[in-house]
């Protein structure tokens, strides 16, 4: 059964003992504790909205793909009515996995164990030998369907939650919606997945990746130092790119570095939004799409999009949003959007699931370019992220030591600047050099959910 009150661990430790609100510290132990993992499954992954994939991965009725919500496996389907459904991949009869493949198309999901059959919307159709009514009469057929999660397709992104009565997806995003809309709702076609996600596993706790996704810009200077050696990434000094604005709310956050410095030569400073848009359309967007942007975004959003677009960050608990653009020899700029779901696989293991996205309505050639850049920089063999995925396991390992577990993760770099007066966006706004506030907010959200009375 779920703990109904703020839980404590079998050794008497309370959640509040693990996170020090005054000094902004979190005990390393949280990265390797099986009991905490169990609680996270109940209090976070069974409660919040989780990202599962992109609408165009299952374009046609009957299409399905198998994804994960924490340690649970779900089937994401498109039903005849065109709706997206998210169903627990657990047969209501005896618990067998209903879909044994990763993807496909079928009008009927039939469990291979005893043949119970379900529609793509989860409805129970029946069991073999109809007249024998092998599903019995104790429960009505309406209660024998696949467990359905609550679904929201945001732009083209599929989210779901087990919390049927909980906050709406918009409330979940809160003040951050203003920023995410700039990425995911700016065009009519929206973003599409360029294929199924890459998947690989690390021996690390999911939170090592999760907390970093809350705008840990600082690690770039050292862990990704090599980027500095490539002139094409900024001017070679990564430090300058550490300045900008960070926004945060509800544990979500995004870094919005100013574009100008990156493209001095274009001399954008004294141009109008209109002109800037024409001169340098947001990478990944074509001039043809600009009217759509203007129609769909507010002038404030448009301005930020050209001046300080949301570039990298995360949606609590386990989604990373990365938008990178790489100036090409030919002067053009190729951008790629990547989403990572850090799916827990027990306390010491996480599955890195990595989607590459592009605007649906750009040319195939542009998509291919984006994809190639993405594959070379992010995910499995990505030259940037291969360093992250080799780092996180060390943190989890250290968290298993009797002294190591008592050590803390510190978030004591506090932003000491006021927000830019002209900043038009909502949420907590942190100005200047990247600091720890957004990551600390991530932990505050974790603390809120973990110690809530449910």
């Amino acid at each position, binding site marked *: 059964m779920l703990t109904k009150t703020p839980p404590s661990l079998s050794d008497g430790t309370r959640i509040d003992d693990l996170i020090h609100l005054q000094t902004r510290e979190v005990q390393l132990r949280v990265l390797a504790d099986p009991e905490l993992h169990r609680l996270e499954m109940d209090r976070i992954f069974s409660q919040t909205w989780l990202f599962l994939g992109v609408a*165009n*991965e299952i*374009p046609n009725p009957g299409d399905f793909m198998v994804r994960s919500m924490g340690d649970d496996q779900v089937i994401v389907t498109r039903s005849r009515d065109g709706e997206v459904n998210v169903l627990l991949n657990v047969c209501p009869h005896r618990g067998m996995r209903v879909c*044994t*493949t*990763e*993807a*496909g198309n079928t009008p009927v999901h039939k469990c291979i164990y005893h043949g119970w059959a379900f529609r793509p919307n989860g409805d129970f159709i029946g069991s073999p030998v109809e007249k024998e009514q092998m599903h019995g009469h104790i429960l009505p057929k309406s209660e024998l369907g696949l467990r359905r999660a609550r679904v929201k397709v945001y732009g083209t992104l599929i989210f779901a939650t087990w919390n049927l009565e909980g906050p709406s997806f918009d409330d979940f995003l809160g003040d951050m919606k203003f920023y995410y809309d700039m990425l995911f709702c700016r065009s009519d076609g929206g973003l*599409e*997945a*360029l*294929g*199924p*996600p*890459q*998947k*690989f*596993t*690390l*021996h690390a706790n999911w939170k090592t990746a999760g907390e970093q996704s809350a705008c840990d810009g600082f690690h770039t200077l*050292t*862990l990704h*130092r*090599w980027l500095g*050696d490539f002139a094409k990434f900024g001017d070679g000094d990564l430090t300058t790119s550490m300045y900008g604005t960070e926004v945060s709310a509800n544990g979500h956050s995004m870094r919005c570095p100013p574009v100008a410095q990156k493209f001095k030569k274009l001399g954008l400073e004294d141009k109008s939004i209109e002109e800037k848009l024409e001169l340098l359309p947001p990478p990944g967007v074509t001039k043809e799409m600009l009217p759509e942007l203007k129609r769909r975004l507010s002038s404030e959003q448009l301005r930020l999009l050209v001046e300080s677009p949301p570039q990298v960050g995360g949606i609590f608990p386990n989604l990373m949003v990365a938008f990178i653009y790489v100036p090409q020899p030919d002067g053009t700029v190729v951008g790629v959007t990547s989403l990572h779901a850090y799916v827990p696989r027990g306390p010491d293991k996480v*599955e*890195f699931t990595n989607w*590459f996205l*592009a605007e*649906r309505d750009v040319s*195939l050639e542009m*998509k291919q370019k984006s*994809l*190639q850049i993405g*594959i*070379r920089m992010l*995910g*499995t*063999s*990505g*030259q940037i*992220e*291969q*360093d992250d*995925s*080799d*780092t*996180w*396991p060390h943190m989890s390992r250290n968290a298993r030591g009797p002294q190591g577990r008592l050590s803390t993760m510190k978030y004591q770099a506090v932003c000491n600047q006021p927000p830019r007066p002209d900043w038009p966006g909502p949420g907590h706004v942190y100005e200047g050099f990247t600091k720890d506030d957004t990551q600390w907010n991530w932990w505050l959200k974790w603390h809120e959910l973990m110690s809530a009375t449910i």
Partner: protein
Amino acid sequence: METVQQSAPVAAPQVEPRAPFRPHRLPVGSDAYNRVAEFLYEEALLLDDLRLAEWTEGLAEDLVYTAPLRQTRHFSEQHLTVIRSVKHFDETYDSIMGRVGRLTKTNSAWAEDPPSRTRRLVTNILVDATDNPNEFDATSYVLLTRNRFEESEMMVLSLVRYDRIRLVDGRLKLAKREIIVDQSVLGMPNLAIFL
């Protein structure tokens, strides 16, 4: 939509022609076969010894180097198990040189610094002639073992490689490689190494 072609079939020319007993099979033990085998063994030694610059000398400048994703599908859908939209690797000669540069010159390619202890055990080599007398198609199996830090368990990944190998000035070079890995969810933290 092309980009979501999960249903992009395993392109026929990439597998069928490798069928046994086909006309162009070069016998095991033939000269060409032996030279290709030697090339593959030496390549493995260079990679396992981290002699990456020397390894690149064996790459053709029009190299196409890819590693598709795998997807678990029903027996009747095996042509859908190799995904060539998104891949694990999608490289050219230049991008490989860039990767090697990062690994050997930046002193901050942490994913492989300290480097893994790797072993590329190459087996089941089959070689076919192509329309070009100076080019050969080689199929080879690889068992990759990888060990990092103090790990007491070795990471293991098996795969098959479909190579195009070209004879240039009396020396063999890799012109094309497709790597089919035997996992749909990779069991290692990254592919910061070459396969």
